[in-house]
């Protein structure tokens, strides 16, 4: 993945109020320990050679952990460079609720999973749908509302979002 694509993604993340940390896979667990607020809960990242067992992040998720955790850590299966969006696919391990319930979401995205725009991301998702992975959310920035008369972030979904981009995967 070219560095300028990652730069562009990082700029879009910034525009969407999402922090961004870059790392190589070898340092991923250390970076996670650094960026998460404890207590943290996670769902398996599905990245070869990386286990949340080597971090302070607790697995597997339980309803109690979802309630108590300050941070939820999950894989982000795709990124949309233009908007700084996460594409998070649902799975049986609970990636969707872990990315949704805690006040902070830390999403781990591999540089090779970045797509230029919505069109490209939907093209890729079409293949994923065909393969049976047919539920996903395109999430851009923290949850927000203006229903109380002014823009407030942190509603039913996370209040802060942090992207960890694995540059060599």
């Amino acid at each position, binding site marked *: 993945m070219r560095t300028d694509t990652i730069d562009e993604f990082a700029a879009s993340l910034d525009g969407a109020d999402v922090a961004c940390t870059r790392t190589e896979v070898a340092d991923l667990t250390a970076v996670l320990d650094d960026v998460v607020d404890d207590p943290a809960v996670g769902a398996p990242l599905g990245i070869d050679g990386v286990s949340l067992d080597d971090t302070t992040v607790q697995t597997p998720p339980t309803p109690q952990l979802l309630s108590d955790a300050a941070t939820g850590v999950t894989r982000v299966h795709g990124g949309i460079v233009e908007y700084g969006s996460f594409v998070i696919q649902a799975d049986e391990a609970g990636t969707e609720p872990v990315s949704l319930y805690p006040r902070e979401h830390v999403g781990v995205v591999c540089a090779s999973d970045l797509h230029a725009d919505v069109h490209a991301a939907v093209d890729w998702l079409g293949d994923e749908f065909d393969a049976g992975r047919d539920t996903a959310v395109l999430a851009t920035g923290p949850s*927000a509302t*203006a229903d109380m008369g002014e823009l407030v972030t942190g509603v039913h979904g996370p209040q802060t979002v942090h992207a960890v981009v694995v540059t060599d995967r």
Partner: protein
Amino acid sequence: MSRREKAQHIRHLLDTEGDAVFENTTHVNDGRLEANATRDDIEDLRTAARRIKEDAIEQLPDLIETVREQVEANGGEVYLADDAADANQYITAVAESKDADLLAKSKSMTSEEIEVNDALEAAGVDVCETDLGEFVLQVADEAPSHLVGPAFHKSTADIATLFNAHFDTGKPLDTAEDLTQFARDHVGDQIRAADVGMTGANFVFAESGTLALVTNEGNARKCAVTPDTHVAIAGVEKLIPSLDDFPPFAELIARAAGGQDIATYLSLLTPPVDSPVVDFENPHEPLDGASDDREFHLVLLDNGRTEMREDDELRETLYCIRCGACANSCANFQHVGGHAFGGETYTGGIATGWEAGVHGLDSAAEFNDLCTGCSRCVDACPVKIDIPWINTVVRDRINRGDDQEFDWLVEGLTPDADPGGLDLQKRLFGNFGTLAKLGSATAPVSNWLADWGPSRAIMERVAGVDRRRDLPAFRRETLVDWFESRDRSRPPATPTGRSSSTPTRTRTTCSWTAGRPPSGRLRRSAST
């Protein structure tokens, strides 16, 4: 409502809700223009979106069959409900079969259309509105005033007063932040306790049986995945063929609704989903989607839509993606809001088409005259609906409906082609050309007569022309006479470019200029 009562009602709304509506619509309009300005392909996207909706409505019976087969193959159920009662019966039966005490619901105008909360509550199932705007209205026991921002008519101070009076909040709530935090926690507890989750759908992809939900708060995500049972309600017009058709809508809907480049959450759910049920009654049990037994019901609502599809003039209403831009861009809406400019369920310019189609002409007649046909909304609409034309058609149908008693008074003012039955006021002014000819020919007698007290009293009672309203003064002079008598040294006036006054389908374009400076964008969930 009589004219007098209606005027009184509107004056009351201008006083009580006008300021909040004006402020909110102004912000959203600024945001929409700003967001659209960041792309140079908005027109192409609108054209593509329009075509997809046209084709989908054309193929609707096939899409219904396709989605039924696919959802069933996925392990869910599809119920095609003829009308509101039918849909409510089905949804209530699902809730009862789960012994549900509490249902958590995300925002859905279609669920408002069928008034499902009343049906569920009558069956002993409590409903918790989880969109914060809807939650405010549930507490206030009021109807939504906007397709996208249901509590658009309430200011922060209004909501603070409401919450402080209704809840024991400890210290009084004051800021938008306080209110959001309080409502989030209160509603969050309800979602955790809910037995059934209910959502709408902004789009339904027939080929995969997928719901697309456009939200910002995250409540719809929680409603859909937390309990083991998910009921989705969608009008049949929400069907589009597949995921491939989604990109133009993903780009357009949040821009049109509130000036965001993209909504915070575009959820593409193909239920029953793999995500594990989150059972807060067993807090230490690890989540495990593999062992869950999820249930999913898709209720597709007809409720007049099949007839709308067959109606050459109302069909276009079915292309509507309920972004609310036609309301925001409307000068009248900006002042009175959706409690005046709206019917039983829907609000804003396009509400005329929806109300006429799903509730009937009487509901549309309550507010339809607030559309002046200026066409500002046409440019704002992401699917290019000719909203003023729908208003014109529905108004015409309403006007021809009843009220023949005093026809003799304006007889001769109506062209032969126009049969009786038109509202007398409309025939008086709608045929102004004839009225003017008659008035000019008999001036100055016509002017004395028009201003004479008893004439004004009759006009007020019979044709609804307020006696304080200035009437045009007629001159016994034709346009040709007048033109000839003008100073001939001046060049003739150039045409102003306004649309023809003949009742043919014409469009004027009108660019929006905001009345107040921008101060931040508003984020609300697009309506389902």
